[in-house]
């Protein structure tokens, strides 16, 4: 049995009378690529926000590698090895792609002495070049983020999250806002880029077709509850999932011959 990287134990979050996340318990084994699906408002993003400390759970706890991280700040949790990307990329819009990566890389080094070194210090520049290369962002390097298409911004967002070499990466709807025909290409690039970096991935998405291609396990959220948890086939066969998440008429592409 692979030890879990992250365990959520009875997590709930209420916003006034609304229960956004309702008693969620799940465990993510190291190295797994886990998909989280659910309609808008199902509690997926709230869950991600709680894992990273942006929102505090009303009850329950998160355990990262055996350590309780409930109540810690996002920056502490990031330092402990959990980073994320965002549905709307959280990048530095007025700076160049290279600068975005260089700042992320510089901040990831966790050394006060290094923080006060030149941003263009040769070993850091080499590191940045490697990241830009890995995420196919090299040709955008000297462009400001404002000039980038959404797909490239998403890649940059994920690349910045990866500069810390996290053990757990949370991807919050990485393909939203990206043209339908670009989605698979983008996710292929993402998973190729992080392959071999020993990172566990929690991949939030509401497009089941994309999830099915990349993950080995799916958790379905509905109204803040986990209604199904298992392999893609198992989850898709689940009555409530067909009712509330993917729709009764949903058929996986390729099986619809």
């Amino acid at each position, binding site marked *: 049995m692979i030890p879990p990287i992250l365990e959520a134990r009875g997590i709930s979050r209420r916003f006034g009378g609304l229960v956004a996340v309702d008693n969620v318990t799940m465990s993510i084994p190291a190295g797994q690529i886990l998909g989280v699906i659910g309609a808008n408002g199902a509690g997926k993003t709230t869950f991600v926000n709680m894992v990273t400390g942006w929102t505090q759970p009303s009850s329950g706890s998160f355990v990262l590698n055996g350590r309780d991280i409930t109540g810690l700040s996002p920056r502490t949790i990031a330092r402990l090895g959990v980073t994320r990307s965002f549905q709307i990329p959280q990048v530095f819009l007025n700076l160049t*792609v*290279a600068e975005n990566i*260089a700042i992320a890389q510089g*901040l990831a080094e966790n050394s006060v002495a290094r923080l006060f070194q*030149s941003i263009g210090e040769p070993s850091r520049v080499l590191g940045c070049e490697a990241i830009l290369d890995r995420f196919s962002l090299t040709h955008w390097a000297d462009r400001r983020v404002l000039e980038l298409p959404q797909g490239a911004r998403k890649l940059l967002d994920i690349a910045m999250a990866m500069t810390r070499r996290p053990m757990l990466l949370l991807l919050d709807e990485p393909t939203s806002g990206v043209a339908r025909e670009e989605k698979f290409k983008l996710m292929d690039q993402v998973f190729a880029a992080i392959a071999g970096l020993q990172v566990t991935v929690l991949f939030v998405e509401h497009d089941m077709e994309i999830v099915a291609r990349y993950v080995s396990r799916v958790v379905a959220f509905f109204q803040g509850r986990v209604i199904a948890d298992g392999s893609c086939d198992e989850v898709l066969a689940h009555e409530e999932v067909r009712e509330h998440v993917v729709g009764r008429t949903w058929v996986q592409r390729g099986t619809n011959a």
Partner: protein
Amino acid sequence: MMSSKTHLAAAVVQSNWKLGHQGDRLLVPIFAGLVVASFFVPAWLLSNGAVTLARALAVLGLILMLRAGLVSFGQGLYFCLGGYSVGMLDLVGVSDLVLRILGGGALCFVVALPVGFLLRRYRGLFFAMLSLAFSMLLFGLLVRSQTFGSTDGFNVVPTTLFGASLAGQQLQRVIFIAAATTGLICCLLTSRYFDTVVGRIAPALKDNEVRIEYLGHSGLALIHFEYTIAAIMTGFAGAIVAMAIGHIDPEMAYWTTSGDIVFIAILGGHTHVLAAFLGSVVFELVHTVALWLTPGTWRLILGAVLLLLILKLPEGLWSLFRRRA
């Protein structure tokens, strides 16, 4: 391959803030030139010059915050504290030039550190107004304080240098050279700082504080750090002004002082350390010429200059010197 790598390295280092070391080469010659010039100009120009350089130092501090997207309308607080620190040192019999400058910075450090804990939580207009409130608080306190001469302020004891007493033109020249030296040191350090990882956080933070947090660092800590550094530089400036004019009064904390500092930052621009000095020199020129032309309406002329500048050179006078890509 090699050339594309070099290009990439340049892209990483280069910033649209163009705050790297380019222009650094100019710093030492410019300030050395000022020192040399000080031997050939009349005393009144020396004291005006020292005030101009000191004001530029306060603007340099403000530039640190402007880069993070924060406008402080209360730098007068530290300008005034720097000035009054000279008076406080007088009370214990210290009149040495170096100790006075360092004392101004030290007092501001002691005040900015706790005040920063509150201010760093605010952004935009709230930050501006709260910083203004603190400076007006000091103004109010000083106006009511008999010890510090109420609205009249008080005269400071003539400055000494390492125990030697100075007078007249020689004294003014020494203060001017001290202002230029402090200016040079602050410029070199700030310029170097802008090139470091920490120094690059400010414009990033202006864009997106959330990402800074998720990269494992606190935007609040950075703002606090830069606010305190700015306060220290403004404290140096206040002490220099007190010595150059030989008099301090609560007006140094009044909102118009803070407003002038913001004005100069807009006038000069905030994309290079020297922009603060260029702005300060032009400000002093406009001030002098306007007073000479129509004594009662110099704020009107200043306002017109600012209006024209915002329309024609929104990035300030320094943008005239920036090489366009």
